[in-house]
């Protein structure tokens, strides 16, 4: 997880992935292990590594974007009105630090002092009382620094502990990081052609990934995600999605797509052969780019491997380092062997 810290701290909400892409592209080029790099109009970054066998192509995919906010208006008192980019729970915004606009200036999402609250005390905050304060005296002053349409990003320092990492945007910089780790450590050719696709705009409706298929004749997609854990004390065990430290989570069904049974089985077989801890994702809510790739162009089959993460879509997520390492091992083995794409030959 050499790059997870930087990947987690970079700002890149949906539609604003430039800095993430720049960082990843630089690392990909440094690795000198890629045969061909392609960027498209949407901002997707696609890196082809030719395999031992060039008759098939596997698409490995992670999204670069994260959830965030967009400035929608500026109040008379200089504070900024915002709206969500992607699925943001308004309740996690209060009292949080944000980086605002192109210059990433300091801002904070304040809330009325508890002493002065009436109906707000027990109400879910609404966009009407969520503001970003950048310290300006009035609208005029704010307008010199921020424009409508500027992004606001959560600002969180990444931290590493013996068994855990803490940071923002593990959904899905964890997936991007797994891909970079695999690429860097690749001493041998992958079994088939392998495309590392870092895609844009997943959080605002799986909008980037479909276009990737235009450029490569892929046989299947394997999406790497940072997914919900939900093993919080207030949720009963049977309602958990995944559990930290139980290994990479493999999806079988998600909103809009039933995972291809052959690919799903190939992943499970690989995990068992490697004797890696793994778990099935216990909930089917939410979707990933597999849904899009399966519905686009030729409708290629796909599967999803997830690194479980607590509190995703919030400024502070918690992930297990063991789960991450085991995900890298599992995915690495899949791309170096024939089983995944071969499973489709029936």
């Amino acid at each position, binding site marked *: 997880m050499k790059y997870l810290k930087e990947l987690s701290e970079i700002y890149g909400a949906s539609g604003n992935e430039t800095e993430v892409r720049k960082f990843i592209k630089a690392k990909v080029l440094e690795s000198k292990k890629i045969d061909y790099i392609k960027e498209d109009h949407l901002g997707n970054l696609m890196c082809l590594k030719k395999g031992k066998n060039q008759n098939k192509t596997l698409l490995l995919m992670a999204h670069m974007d994260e959830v965030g906010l967009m400035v929608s208006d500026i109040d008379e008192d200089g504070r900024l009105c915002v709206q969500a980019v992607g699925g943001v729970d308004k309740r996690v915004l209060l009292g949080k630090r944000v980086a605002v606009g192109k210059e990433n200036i300091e801002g904070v999402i304040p809330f009325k002092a508890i*002493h002065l609250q009436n109906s707000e005390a027990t109400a879910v905050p609404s966009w009407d009382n969520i503001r970003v304060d950048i310290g300006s005296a009035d609208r005029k002053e704010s307008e010199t620094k921020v424009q409508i349409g500027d992004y606001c990003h959560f600002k969180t320092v990444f931290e590493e*502990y013996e068994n855990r990492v*803490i940071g923002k945007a593990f959904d899905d910089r964890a997936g991007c990081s797994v891909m970079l780790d695999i690429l860097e450590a690749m001493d041998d050719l992958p079994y088939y052609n392998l495309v590392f696709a870092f895609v844009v705009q997943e959080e605002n409706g799986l909008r980037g990934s479909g276009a990737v298929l235009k450029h490569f004749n892929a046989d299947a997609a394997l999406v790497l995600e940072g997914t919900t854990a939900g093993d919080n*004390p*207030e949720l009963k065990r049977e309602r958990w999605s995944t559990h930290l430290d139980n290994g990479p989570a493999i999806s079988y069904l998600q909103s809009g797509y039933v995972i291809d049974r052959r690919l799903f089985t190939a992943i499970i077989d690989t995990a068992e052969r490697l004797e890696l801890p793994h778990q099935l994702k216990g909930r089917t809510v939410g979707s990933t780019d597999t849904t899009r790739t399966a519905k686009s162009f030729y409708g290629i089959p796909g599967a999803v491997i997830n690194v479980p993460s*607590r509190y995703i879509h919030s400024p502070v997520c918690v992930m297990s380092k063991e789960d991450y390492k085991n995900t890298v091992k599992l995915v690495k083995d899949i791309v170096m062997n024939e089983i995944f794409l071969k499973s489709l030959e029936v």
Partner: protein
Amino acid sequence: MKNDIKEMAFEFSKAYGPPGREEEIREKIKRRVESLCDEVFVDKSGNLIAVKKATEKSLGKMMVSTHMDEICVICSKVLEEGFLRIEGIGMDPKLLPSQKVWVHTRDGERLRGVIGMLAPHLQTAETKSKVSDFDTLFVDVSMHDINKFNTGDFITYDNDPFEANGKLFTKTLDNRASCMASITALDFLSKMRHSYDYYAVFSSREEIGAFGARTAVSLIQPSVTIAMDATFSNIAVPNNKKVEMGKGPVIARGPVLTKIVTEKLESCCKTYGIPMQLEVSPGRTGTDADQLQLEGVPTGLVSIPSSYMHTPYEKMSISDITEAGRLLAVYCSELDESSFEIRSDAKEENK
């Protein structure tokens, strides 16, 4: 000025100090006031008392009380799976989800915790309609050995202060900003003549009832006390004149506050061109002043305009803090032997 406001704000906001656990913040303040004062000591209640003696024969004591403790949450139960259940002192539970916190353990360690919030994907219509309360909030401490935690561990926000356009954004400006103002007053006084001893009391346990101030005033027996705290600014408080940030310290009028003190504070502002605002406190003030008055000494209240009180990022203007410090220094230097004479009606008649 020896002590820079922004520098102090950043340093103090990082210092741990829930009610009754003020050791760390006390040490930081002590280091700053030692060179400015003639005597510095800690009393039985944990108050830090710094005395700057009068530059001539002392005519009395002026005590300024600024509380140094901060709001916090406390661990009420340790869950084996790596979580802590919590209860609050002064904290708004709505602002706790998705915060990084410090857990201060019994063994004196400061350990990371994360107050988690279930991802929106797993929320139901019912859970989405509710705001967090202390029945549902928890701290994720799964990054540490759970045996390090105990019921009764104090938990505080962890965040990074910043400054934008002369405004400070950080936790604990309530009431560390007043501590800074009192230190600034000491800075000013080091270049002024004053015939009253200045007692800077950095008081303990305000957030649970201002006990520190109460015992300090009994111990010191001052001629006059001034409490300092944060007050609400840039927000409509029903039936109150709006206090504005950046327009100077706020002097309170009300039954708890002695008229001669309030009037003198106001006239000092006029004489020295210190910007000021007025607020009323018809009942209790909700500050150290409520306790100070009970000792029977003349009491005043000077507040610093603040937004977002008791949240992770409180906001204040640097200039308001500096001006509040200047006001205290000027007030002290203006006191003379007749300042606190009791002018009863009978005495008036005798003239």
